[in-house]
């Protein structure tokens, strides 16, 4: 079955420290992979996506993610976290079995301490 697992429900990072958010997936082939961010009271904003090619993907706001086929992972990283990065982060894969929609993980809430 297709699924996405984000093992960490909540992470706290000090401002200026590095960040890695984990994402593992179960999928029959190589999926499309996405990371979205949701600020409080807001909709979801796309950070980055991977379809094919270079396995290290650069996104907005200084984020990057690396696709590792052997580990079925697509972890999100940022070298230096800012207080404004505090939000909820969702990993997603697609398409689903119907071929049209994304399957989302349950999300990781990031808190940033000063």
């Amino acid at each position: 079955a297709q699924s996405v697992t984000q093992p960490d429900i909540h992470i706290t990072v000090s401002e200026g420290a590095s960040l890695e958010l984990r994402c593992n997936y179960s999928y029959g082939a190589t999926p499309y992979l996405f990371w979205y961010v949701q600020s409080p009271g807001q909709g979801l904003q796309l950070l980055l996506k991977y379809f094919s090619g270079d396995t290290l993907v650069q996104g907005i706001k200084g984020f990057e993610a690396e696709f590792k086929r052997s580990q079925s992972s697509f972890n999100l990283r940022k070298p230096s976290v800012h207080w404004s990065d505090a939000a909820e982060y969702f990993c997603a894969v697609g398409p689903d079995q119907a071929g049209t929609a994304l399957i989302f993980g349950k999300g990781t809430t990031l808190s940033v301490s000063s």
Partner: protein
Amino acid sequence: NAGVTQTPKFRVLKTGQSMTLLCAQDMNHEYMYWYRQDPGMGLRLIHYSVGEGTTAKGEVPDGYNVSRLKKQNFLLGLESAAPSQTSVYFCASTGAGGLSGVAFFGQGTRLTVV
């Protein structure tokens, strides 16, 4: 500004009442989706549409109906609201490339059923 607009942003319903959530996009996108977001559950697909006049069921369609009479609008209806439908509802859209494009999300509708 171009994007996805959801109406209303907040609503409180009594059990058994009906209502319609409106999603409007001005990007001429083919694909539109309705998700619900519940704490610790991520986003789950309710219904989706791949074009004007077409709709299909997602992961959690029970208790909801949808219509896509115009390309720019995707309506989500609750005929007889239940407390289990208390949630935050998000609409999203993508262009003709489907998941190869960017999915734009609305800001959400927070629905409480009492």
